[in-house]
């Protein structure tokens, strides 16, 4: 019985638990830059999108749940949770649910290295930029798996289109941020934000910003590049056969991705948490992020959809050449000795 004496007492376990729960890392993971933040923001974005699209189309939008209908996402969530999950007869229901879960895990992962304030970041990664790109490039594979698992032609076509879309947008998206890496000499997102203290990167990297924003629209599968779920052609694209709570999780994952990518645009080009000291840093960050997200939503309300061959052609000619032009312009800036402004 002597080995029992070596075990921690209940008091010690309790103390350890309290220390973990009150530690800064735990609070960051569970609350502010972490889980609760992205869930609430994604829910808020669904409401924002409905309101903004309603204004664009001269409607009012959700009105009854809470003030200005702000509780509408919660009402939708409760409704979807109690709905029947209908899967087609030949579909792989377990695979679909696992893929919805996987989409959510993937959509949440890029938030880890994004700084929401000075030092307010879950993990201060030195390769944050590469990490974010690596994670978001896994999306089309999962979407194709959903399309295949649904065993429905619309879903499968949507999945294939998602894959081709990635072939189009990914290279311009990578190359458009190369200028920032050249100017700052780091892949750490926190240091990239600090480098913008004198001037935001949207000014010297305006070509890169244009290319990156366009590529992000394609990456998020938003209009004018929402081919994988083009409603008039493919019903709901790869989401056609998702239903009930699986649909809710998949849908929430797409809005989480919208939030995360808006945060990436803010971090890389719009100065992240930088701003006058009248507001706290995270407030500046969230303001900018939601402004970018609103711009994405307004574009959805105003532009028509393009064909997939036009998307691929544009990405491989105009976007790619503009991204290369941005690299050459940045090289010229550094050779002229102007790069010192953004060194960290």
């Amino acid at each position: 019985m002597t080995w029992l004496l070596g075990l921690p007492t209940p008091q010690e376990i309790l103390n350890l638990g309290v220390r973990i729960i009150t530690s800064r890392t735990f609070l960051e993971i569970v609350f502010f830059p972490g889980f609760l933040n992205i869930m609430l923001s994604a829910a808020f974005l669904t409401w924002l999108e409905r309101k903004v699209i309603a204004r664009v189309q001269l409607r009012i939008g959700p009105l009854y749940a809470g003030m200005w209908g702000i509780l509408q996402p919660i009402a939708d969530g409760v409704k979807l949770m109690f709905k029947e999950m209908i899967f087609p007869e030949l579909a792989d229901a377990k695979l679909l649910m696992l893929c919805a879960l996987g989409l959510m895990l993937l959509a949440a992962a890029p938030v880890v290295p994004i700084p929401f304030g000075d030092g307010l970041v879950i993990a201060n990664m030195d390769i944050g930029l590469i990490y974010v790109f690596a994670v978001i490039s896994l999306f089309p594979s999962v979407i194709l798996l959903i399309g295949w698992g649904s065993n429905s032609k619309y879903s499968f076509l949507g999945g294939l289109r998602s894959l081709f879309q990635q072939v189009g947008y990914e290279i311009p998206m990578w190359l458009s941020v190369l200028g920032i890496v050249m100017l700052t000499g780091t892949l750490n997102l926190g240091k990239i934000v600090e480098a913008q203290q004198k001037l935001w990167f949207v000014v010297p990297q305006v070509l890169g910003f244009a290319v990156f924003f366009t590529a992000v629209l394609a990456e998020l599968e938003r209009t004018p590049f929402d081919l994988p779920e083009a409603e008039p052609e493919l019903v709901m694209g790869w989401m056609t056969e998702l239903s009930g709570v699986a649909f809710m999780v998949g849908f929430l994952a797409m809005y989480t991705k919208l939030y995360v990518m808006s945060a990436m645009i803010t971090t890389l080009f719009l100065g992240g948490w930088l701003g006058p000291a009248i507001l706290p840093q995270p407030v500046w960050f969230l303001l900018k992020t939601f402004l970018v997200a609103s711009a994405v939503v307004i574009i959805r309300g105003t532009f028509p959809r393009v064909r997939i061959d036009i998307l691929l052609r544009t990405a491989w000619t105009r976007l790619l050449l503009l991204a290369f032009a941005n690299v050459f312009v940045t090289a010229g800036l550094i050779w002229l000795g102007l790069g010192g402004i953004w060194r960290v």
Partner: protein
Amino acid sequence: MALDSWSLVAIFEIVVFLVIFPVLVFGWLMGAKGRNPIRDAPFESGQTRLGEARRRYMMQYYPYLIMFVAFDVVAMFLFTWGLAFSALPISQDYVFLVFLVVLVAPLAYALYLSGKPEFW
């Protein structure tokens, strides 16, 4: 107790999993159940289903896929070059920019050979 980045990513993913997975199970348990051959048919705009969806599809846009493989590898190397850009002397930057031109020129020539002015 300092955790490295990858442990933090793992902990974060576990937190997301611990919340989302019960939600899925809850929805599975609470939702109504019942099978009905008409309701279980995949949606094909009101038509009856024509065969399986898992069949051969035409692989379109193949040249883009080949270009993608080449450029994807190169793009990764460009990041390591970009990191060192300011530290390198101009002579070596210049050599790499020549490499970039060599990369873009065949692409431009291929698009020129396709003979379609709308490609530009």
